[in-house]
């Protein structure tokens, strides 16, 4: 066997791929569900936190910044492991999927809060003042004038964050979540061949290339002429 044939045999073995394709597909579907759940929860929570922060109540802001900074400072894997292995000792048991979902959602929320907050700050003061001068309340000015403005500014960084955190679903493999990477590694172990990993990589490409493209589309769709 030449080197090239060995490479093809180990990484692009169609026979092995065919055998593990169903498992990788299962992982693919689970990864999508997990990603959607994490993005929905993380962004909603992040927006809620940024809204709380915009009320500018000192002690609340301090507590919020502390938690957000902690979540951004600790690797997501550590949080997943803590949730899965440590929380049962205080009576909170969750499945690997739940631990991964909760951890990644919290981490995304922390980043999203900072991004939303930066977006809110980037809205010129005059927008607030114009809105408030017509009698809109703080909440109405935030909801109808400032946030629509801020959200458009935040779409590019949020898209990047969402992509990064979705790749983080692979960390779930540590706590037995049967997502793409887990399925690929299991396939590799059982077959003694790396082709399931290649298949896994392909699955990630299939997942993320459209994601990045949608992100780009959303960016232009929601931009407005200045």
């Amino acid at each position, binding site marked *: 066997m030449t080197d090239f044939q060995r490479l093809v045999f180990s990484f692009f073995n169609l026979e092995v791929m065919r055998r593990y394709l169903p498992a990788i597909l299962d992982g693919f579907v689970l990864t999508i569900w997990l990603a959607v759940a994490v993005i929905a929860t993380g962004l909603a929570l992040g927006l809620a936190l940024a809204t709380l922060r915009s009320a500018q109540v000192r002690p609340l802001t301090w507590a919020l910044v502390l938690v957000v900074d902690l979540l951004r400072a600790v690797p997501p894997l550590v949080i997943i492991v803590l949730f899965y292995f440590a929380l049962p000792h205080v009576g909170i048991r969750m499945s690997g999927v739940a631990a991964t979902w909760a951890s990644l959602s919290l981490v995304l929320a922390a980043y999203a809060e900072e991004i939303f907050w930066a977006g809110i700050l980037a809205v010129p003061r005059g927008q607030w*003042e114009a809105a408030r*001068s017509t009698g809109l309340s703080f909440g109405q000015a935030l909801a109808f004038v400032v946030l629509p403005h801020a959200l458009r500014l935040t779409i590019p960084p949020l898209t990047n964050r969402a992509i990064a955190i979705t790749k983080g679903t692979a960390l779930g493999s540590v706590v037995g979540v049967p997502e793409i990477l887990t399925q690929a590694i299991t396939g590799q172990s059982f077959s003694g061949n790396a082709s399931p990993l290649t298949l896994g990589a392909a699955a990630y490409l299939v997942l993320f290339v459209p994601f990045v493209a949608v992100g780009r589309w959303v960016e232009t769709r929601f931009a407005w002429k200045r």
Partner: protein
Amino acid sequence: MSRRPPILDVAGLHKHFGPLHVLRGIDLRVAPQELVFIIGPSGSGKSTLLRCLNRLEEPSAGAIVFDGVDVLAPDVDINAIRRQMGMVFQSFNLYPHMTALGNVALALRKVLGRGRADAEALARAALARVGLSDKAGAYPSELSGGQQQRVAIARALALEPKIMLFDEPTSALDPELVGSVLAVMRAMRESGMTMVVVSHELQFARAAADRVVFIDHGEIVEEGPPARVFGDPAHARTREFVARIAGHP
């Protein structure tokens, strides 16, 4: 001017920004349908005075009574007061994600609680008043500065305020666009709107103002009919200022 009871009565108004004492005891009464023109060097406190009236800035001390309501009372509904005090800003501050119509209709819907169709009809009427009926569907970025400022005026006007506050409404405009905004203001004046205008447009003041108030270092130095303040100012500071800006119309 003091024959009619004032609609706006400001007494002993002070404003500090940290160590900066920006307003030092302002007393100002504005009668219904009066046009009061406020002039003064930059940093004299005239914009701050205007912004204290609807509490975009929180006054440090003093009293403001508007239409019989104590504006500075702790339990006052400031949003209710603000919708009766229209405000126009130097930088227009239109909402960039909404059309001209959307800009004008927003407060009609959310503050006055009008339905969409009702609010849009009122917004169209307000846009017609500022001569922009044909621009209802345009976004701010598609409008000239003068048009944007007129939309901003329509946004305030649509709420049928009892007074309009103008904070240097033409300062950010190219000279050839100033006239269209002043024309709208003159029409409002003729329709009997009470107006407080901070501006450097002395010609407009001469033609339209009932009273000119000169502010310097946070104090009212002098006030009176435009002909007297501009033609025969009592104070050297006023004379100096008027001569300086008359040289750069």
